């Protein structure tokens, strides 16, 4: 069990670290001032605004 944990815990932590920037980027695309804000038409942006952000 401990052996399995010593393999999968580092792998999962590093997977998280690798994927979080991608996820952050996708989320920021749906917020005002986000990364893709200037490349998407404003009407699309308004409909896609992330809940809880202005």
């Amino acid at each position, binding site marked *: 069990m401990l052996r399995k944990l010593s*393999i*999968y815990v*580092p*792998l999962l932590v*590093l*997977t998280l*670290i*690798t*994927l*979080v*920037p*991608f996820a*952050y*980027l996708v989320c*920021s695309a749906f917020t005002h001032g986000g*990364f893709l804000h200037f490349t998407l038409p404003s009407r699309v942006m308004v409909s896609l605004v992330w809940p809880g952000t202005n």
Partner: protein
Amino acid sequence: MTATTQHNRWVPYAFLAPFLVILVIFIAYPLYHSVVLSMKQTFGPSRSAFVGLENFRFLASDPLFWKALKNTTYFAAGSVLIQLPVSLGLALLLNRPDVRGRAVFRLIFFSPSLVGLVFVAMMFSLIFEKNTGLVNVLLHDMSPAFDPEFPWLQQYVMPTLVIAALWIYGGFNMIYFLAALQNVDKQLIEAAMVDGANAWQRFLHVTIPAIRPIATFIVLLSLIGSFQLFDLPYVLLSGAGPDNQGLTVVMYLFQMGWDQQDLGLASAIGWSLAMLLGIFALIYRWLSRASED
């Protein structure tokens, strides 16, 4: 000598001619011209004056060049001392036959290499932003004592660049190590196990010597790539950053050549960098020969 023999004598040269023409026009002449240019002071492409080795003398006493070299060396050291051990660790984990989903993990870790450097730089400029950046928000949530205005991109430029490069190239270098590990002779490892060697001893005395040629090659590639660093800090910091903290040698070359219009000094910087990388290549050659003996 018959006409046919004479004709045959020129055939190899005729086949070589296209390559030689391209080599001379696109490689040999530009190299020669850049050597000549490095001995001139220029203002744009049309006005120049021969100054001998003055550009190199200027660089030797130029604090900005030394700062750029220091920053670049910091980044290269970070790449070699942090990035490569992480890549090797990942490769060792994903080389185990008992790990489930190895192919998925390999794809995930390799995926940052598929994204362009400019794109990554823009992404990390958002992530390391003061107050609203993901890193500061997460660290502040985990420990309220952490200042959410922690100035990553203002005061800790080089560590930030090392972290960004680790994210991009960690998985890329892992692929090289993985290829090297898959070529390690399994019989040697089994023999070491029979002799009573533990995992650490097998790694140190069997795996490391077996992967050494590829490992030294990865170190050389990583050093060359690190010393040519330009686009990541240029986009991440919109230039050299506050107080030139993110200034690298190639960025300094760019500034001299394009902003200051001194192509001669830019060539001298380029040749200084080439000589430095040449020294690394010689050390690599020496290490490779030593390991072969």
